[in-house]
């Protein structure tokens, strides 16, 4: 091995170098605003096109230019998509963060750096292999425009990685061609930059390294896409025509995606006019107000926001709950509270969404784990909102929304019809009269808690009603009668109960080889990747469990059944206060003793090792406790 850069002569070669094929973590440490994200993405996508499961995570700062940013790519032919601690190869081109970066490399791993300037000796670890490439010098020599010098530096190191890790070069050039379709003049310079890197590496180092990749056929027809893109697309397919929003990281790209697709797919062929309306509101209160107004008036409408927006919207959510107006709301969670860490992930808005608003309220919350589910659940959210005439929150998170995820391709059943719920048209209103019945907006005609509504403008003299957030009777007439109020609140509970079987079912992850599970796991959203991997690791260590991925609130009856089948259930969630556990207890009267919180809330996506170590610790402790029962004579 001669990966140590000759230029920084003091480093010795011949260190221990790890071996790995198709199981590695490559991490890029850059400065934001330098165009690195797209180059790093090119790297990840190349791995994907080589048929390998890949999972990239963009870890970026809350500013625009000049601060450290990271991009982590996990490659796993076993199919593990969770974040994994320990970096096999660090591409470290940011001097600001190098001290930290070098620490993260696993023993026997690699550290690729810009050797234009010699490496600070304090950064040198004995057990790490250093790969110096004079990136800046190469760019200086190759380009005159300072902007190109900066931009192509990133492409060059991707080229070098191709040589070092044995990435198929044609895959990279293919990606470049796809990316610059329509801007062909950009293709050659990019390919050239790739080649520069490739050749430098090939020439100076023993390529490939002992850690490397090799084509497999493991991704099938899967796609690599971000959750926010999928959500925006789901809103298109779900029939949303009004999107009102206010920019906030990490939800901004939801409406941007919706608008992008709408501009492609929702333009009236004849007139060139838009079959949708996107409106950037002045704030979140206005955004949700617009959604409620549009949905009241019979359009499918949605907004996308993050935690602070949920807080601001909560009065309006209470209105929609009580006045029974549909509304779809996407919350892409970030680390809270307050402004929090806007560029870090978390699952800490669960309670705020499920119970948003003062007064007694409960909202339907859908919990996607993958972009595919973002697509499906968003489309379904509009059906549920219409059917139950109530707000539906699609609860995503930064990791899911802003990072690309490998998932099943989207599909759509063309025979599917939108479920607009119980809406009476003019004819039906006349029919009612003919039957001698009176239309009552809040009459529980069918006994399922869901009443019939009408859209404004339906009929010249029938079916109009007055919507309000104050108490009213079954005919929507204002009243302050306490029993009428209480009956209505009870009906709303009944409606919520009806919704239980209509929301997406939980998905179970069986134990290894069908072994009788020693414990259960309840989880939701992006925790699924770490839990799946952890279950394998635990099984290898003889600890067998099964898991249930909850997909919605209110809880589907199957959640209750799962709990009943288990004596000990770990509730895995990415927040401090065990919010899912609180919901399980309060809604299902589940015993706290049974539910062991397993929490992660540092803003980074959950890792399998965290899950493994906590479950193992608990199980071992319990096992020990069982073997050493309290001695008989002990006091109470």
């Amino acid at each position: 091995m001669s990966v140590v850069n000759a230029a920084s002569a003091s480093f010795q070669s011949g260190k221990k170098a790890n071996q790995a094929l198709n199981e590695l973590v490559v991490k890029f440490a850059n400065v934001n605003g330098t165009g690195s994200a797209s180059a790093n993405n090119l790297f990840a996508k190349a791995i994907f096109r080589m048929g390998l499961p890949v999972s990239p995570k963009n870890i970026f700062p809350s500013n625009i230019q000049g601060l450290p940013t990271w991009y982590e790519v996990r490659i796993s032919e076993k199919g593990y998509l969770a974040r994994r601690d320990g970096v096999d190869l660090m591409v470290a081109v940011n001097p600001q963060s190098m001290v930290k970066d070098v620490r993260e490399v696993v023993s026997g791993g690699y550290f690729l750096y810009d050797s234009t300037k010699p490496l600070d000796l304090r950064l040198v670890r004995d057990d790490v292999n250093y790969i110096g490439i004079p990136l800046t010098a190469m760019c200086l020599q190759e380009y005159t425009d300072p902007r190109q010098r900066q931009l192509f530096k990133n492409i060059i190191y991707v080229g070098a990685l191709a040589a070092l890790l044995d990435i198929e070069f044609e895959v990279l050039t293919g990606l470049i061609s796809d990316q610059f379709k329509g801007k062909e003049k950009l293709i050659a310079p990019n390919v050239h930059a790739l080649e520069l890197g490739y050749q430098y590496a090939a020439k100076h180092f023993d390529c490939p390294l002992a850690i490397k990749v090799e084509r497999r056929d493991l991704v099938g027809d899967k796609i690599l896409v971000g959750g926010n893109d999928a959500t925006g697309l789901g809103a298109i397919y779900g029939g949303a025509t009004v999107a009102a929003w206010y920019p906030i990281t990490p939800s901004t790209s939801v409406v941007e995606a919706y608008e992008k697709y709408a501009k492609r797919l929702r333009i009236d062929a004849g007139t060139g006019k838009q079959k949708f309306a996107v409106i950037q509101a002045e704030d979140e209160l206005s955004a949700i107000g617009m959604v409620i107004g549009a949905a009241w008036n019979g359009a499918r409408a949605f907004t996308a926001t993050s935690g602070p927006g949920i807080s601001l919207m909560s009065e309006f959510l209470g209105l929609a709950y009580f006045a029974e107006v549909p509304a779809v709301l996407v919350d892409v969670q970030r680390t809270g509270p307050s402004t929090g860490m806007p560029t870090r992930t978390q699952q800490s808005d669960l309670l705020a969404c499920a119970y948003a608003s003062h007064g007694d309220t409960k909202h339907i919350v859908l919990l996607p784990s993958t972009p595919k589910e973002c697509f499906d659940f968003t489309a379904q959210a509009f059906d549920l909102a219409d059917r139950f005439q109530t707000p539906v929150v699609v609860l995503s998170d930064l990791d899911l929304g802003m990072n690309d995820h490998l998932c099943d391709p989207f599909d759509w059943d063309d025979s599917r019809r939108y479920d607009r719920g119980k809406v009476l048209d003019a004819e039906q209103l006349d029919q009612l009269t003919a039957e001698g019945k009176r239309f009552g907006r809040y009459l529980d005609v069918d006994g399922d808690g869901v009443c019939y509504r009408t859209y404004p403008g339906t009929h010249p003299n029938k079916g109009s009603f007055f919507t309000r957030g104050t108490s009213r009777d079954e005919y929507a007439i204002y009243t302050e009668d306490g029993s009428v109020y209480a009956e209505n609140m009870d009906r709303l509970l009944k409606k919520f109960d009806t919704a239980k079987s209509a929301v997406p079912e939980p998905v179970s992850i069986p134990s290894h080889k069908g072994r009788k599970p020693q414990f259960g796991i309840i989880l939701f959203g992006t925790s699924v990747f770490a839990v799946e991997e952890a279950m394998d690791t635990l099984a290898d260590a003889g600890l067998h469990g099964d898991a249930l991925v909850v997909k919605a609130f209110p809880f589907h009856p199957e959640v209750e059944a799962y709990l009943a089948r288990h004596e000990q259930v770990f509730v895995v969630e990415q927040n401090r206060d065990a919010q899912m556990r609180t919901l399980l207890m309060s809604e299902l009267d589940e015993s706290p003793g049974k539910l062991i919180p397993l929490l992660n809330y540092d803003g980074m996506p959950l890792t399998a090792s965290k899950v493994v170590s906590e479950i193992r610790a608990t199980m071992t402790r319990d096992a020990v406790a069982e073997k050493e029962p309290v001695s008989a004579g002990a006091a109470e």
Partner: protein
Amino acid sequence: MTYLRPNFRHPDAPTNRIGFTEKDYEGALSTLCAGCGHDSISSAIVSACFELSIEPHRVAKLSGIGCSSKTPTYFLSNSHGFNSVHGRMPSVTTGANLANRDLIYLGVSGDGDSASIGLGQFGHVVRRNLNMLYVLENNGCYGLTKGQTSATTDLDSVNKAGVNNPFEPIDLTKLALQLGATFVARSFSGDKEQLVPLIKAAISHRGFAFIDVISPCVTFNNNPGSKKSYDFVREHCEATATIDFVPMQEEITTAYEPGSTKEVTLHDGSVIRLQKPMTDYRPDNRHAALEALHRAEQRGEILTGLLYIDEDPSDLHDTLNTVSTALNALDEEALCPGNKVLQSINRSFR
């Protein structure tokens, strides 16, 4: 508590072009205080819609929270109504309008609702030129919460709790002009002769129409100089410190000629000076309208009438270039791109 009016229809009641009587435009019985200016506005709305021969169900009535915001219950009972949350009527109306461009949107708000909690939404709905009529029922106080000062309360006026208002009022007509409103008018609740035609013009306007209607709160908007007949009773109420006595009042009405100024005495004995611009005032210049308001203000007068109109504005749907079909009327066919397209989108993610 909302009583539906008895459904008696007089056989000889005059009908409008489409065969409706004025009664068909009425709503439930009002639960506002006797003599409240807001009730006069409701009745002006009824007249205007009747005279315009609007199909009542083609109107959507939206409001925030307040005595004023309750009024949509008291007119057009064949229209859908939405009494939303405090200060947010503009956003709800914006959404409603986006969903169905074919209805007439009538937003009702109070001065607290619009100039205090709702100032931001007010500014932005103006800026978007939403096609709606925005009626501000401006009584210079918070009626429903019992008489606190609002952002349009006159400087130095004293409220029921004896608190002096130390702040300059916000004039929303000026703000509307500044922010680009395409129809701006002011009137007085009791001046049906002026108000009804203004409402008709505003409804006919294709864009954002704002009418600031001075509407006396007979119960709480008492100015300091007031020395009216019921001093004894007032003192009585003050002493008991419960503001629960509301003497019965008559609606205040007025009528006067264009170009003239009219003093109107309110229930508490205080006087406001309303002014109608000359017949040659041309409401086609935003800047001139601001000027005219400024000059009237300096004279201690409240300028009323149509202050500004842009006769051919582009409304929000024009701006957004939406299809002419109401968005809420589009079905799967029009909205869902289908699986084939989806499969090609999948390919872009590989």
